[in-house]
């Protein structure tokens, strides 16, 4: 029972991180139909900031968490301003290729600055388990799940209830009509990048908590799997990203538990292939009607 529970918690933890990253993918796709392949690398930026602040500067983990989230947010907005905004009216393929370019730029930039060897991110806290009656649960796992729940609720409220959130939905549906309402489309898109990247920043901290590592290419596989999660749930859908993330997390957990951990990446991508064949729009995806 104990093992079962801790495995479920592991699945939830991993799934939560995927979900946080998938949310960023899905939000950016929802508003400008861009698969932001540099999104995973933002996690890497956050992990390095955590490492810098704690291991190099010896500062408090709280400061590390805050600075990681701030750095990810700034990098996300900067990427949009520098790389994507000038291509707003360009064909979608141009901006997609740019996203891949930005991804390589970040990965190789990090390698140039920090070297190819992984850095060890110190533990954020000495507490490793919390007791729930007789059961000892992993503290980082519990925190990860709780933070993800709170972040998802906050994001849902933001998008559904706030003026800016409604503007985001308006822009995602019809940019021209949104302009006519007096909505500044460019700053709304920047805001979307900021929110998505802040979530990635939170994901980065939680990831560093669980895997205590920062390396230049760490965002690649993590980002790709989060992308699978977003597609699985239905890209553009917020609940879809969360559910997709959890499915991917659990799939990996089950495969690992069965002693087949070398197969876990293959299983995730197999899931993607199955979804693309059976229901290409994903679980919560709507069939997009072409805008005229």
């Amino acid at each position, binding site marked *: 029972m104990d093992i079962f529970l801790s495995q479920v918690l592991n699945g939830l933890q991993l799934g939560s991180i995927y979900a946080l990253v998938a949310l960023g993918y899905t939000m950016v796709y929802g508003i400008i139909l861009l698969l932001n392949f540099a999104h995973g690398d933002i996690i890497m930026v956050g992990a390095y900031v955590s490492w810098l602040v704690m291991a190099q500067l010896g500062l408090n983990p709280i400061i590390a968490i805050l600075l990681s989230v701030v750095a990810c947010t700034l990098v996300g907005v900067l990427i949009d301003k520098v790389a994507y905004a000038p291509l707003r009216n360009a064909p979608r393929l141009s901006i997609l290729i740019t996203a891949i370019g930005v991804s390589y730029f970040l990965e190789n930039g990090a390698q140039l600055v920090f070297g190819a060897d992984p850095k060890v991110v110190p533990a954020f806290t000495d507490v490793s388990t919390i007791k729930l009656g007789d059961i000892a649960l992993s503290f980082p796992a519990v925190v990860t799940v709780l933070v993800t729940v709170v972040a998802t609720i906050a994001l849902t409220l933001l998008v559904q209830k706030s*003026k800016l959130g*409604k*503007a985001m*939905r*308006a822009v995602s*549906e*019809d940019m*021209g*009509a*949104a*302009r*006519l*309402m*007096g*909505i*500044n*489309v460019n700053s709304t898109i920047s805001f979307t990048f900021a929110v998505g990247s802040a979530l990635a920043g939170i994901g980065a901290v939680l990831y560093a908590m669980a895997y205590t590592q920062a390396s230049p290419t760490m965002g690649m596989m993590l980002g790709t799997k989060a992308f699978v999660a977003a597609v699985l749930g239905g890209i553009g859908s917020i609940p879809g990203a969360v559910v997709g993330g959890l499915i991917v997390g659990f799939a990996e957990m089950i495969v690992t538990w069965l002693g087949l951990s070398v197969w876990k990446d293959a299983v995730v991508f197999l899931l993607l292939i199955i979804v693309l064949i059976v229901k290409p729009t994903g679980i919560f995806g709507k069939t997009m009607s072409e805008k*005229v």
Partner: protein
Amino acid sequence: MALLSVRDLHVSYGAIKAVRGISFDINEGEIVTLIGANGAGKSTTLNTVAGLIKPESGTVEFDGASVVGVPAHKVVQRGMALCPEGRRVFTQMSVAENLEMGGYTRSDAENKETLEKVYSHFPRLKERRTQVAGTLSGGEQQMLAMGRALMSRPRLLMLDEPSMGLAPILVQEIFEIVKQLNEAGTTILLVEQNANMALSIADRAYVLEIGTIKKTGTGAELLVDDDVRKAYLGG
């Protein structure tokens, strides 16, 4: 002084010249209509005035100040609202949210007040305020698009083909509301293919043909004009 004054406006899409040097004025309190066939440059003119398209040359002055080069989202703040062709309501948002977006540049207190006015013009929108806009009928969507444009409290309301795709009885209703809005003090610039309807409510009209103004006069004059009758009113 005219509320809106357009002088020698030229607009191109790449190599295609859509508007070739048109000039017109709209005075406060008027209903002015631009009529003409498909491709005459009517919508292009409206979209340019609203700031969605940059003109090649020419001037557009609203209330004495140039709006050329002012982005669309700032034009709204100057007091012009465009209700676009094809309605373009936010189909996945509720009626109330659509209206809220219309009042994006206004304060919550102002919006509360304007909302009551909009609901009094369009009681059906009030009944359906929680409904998702995509599930409304064409006529209701048109009303929503107009109500949404009114939420910014425009001095000049530009309507692009409000009758498009609507049953005759609904067209009547929409035009009736346009007249009411005008009587309540909103200046109207109306673009229509339904020339008969447009001319019958317009104070003045301009006839557009391939990007230029062919004729101008009062609505009543053009309704009985031989050329206009032949070309746009079915003889």
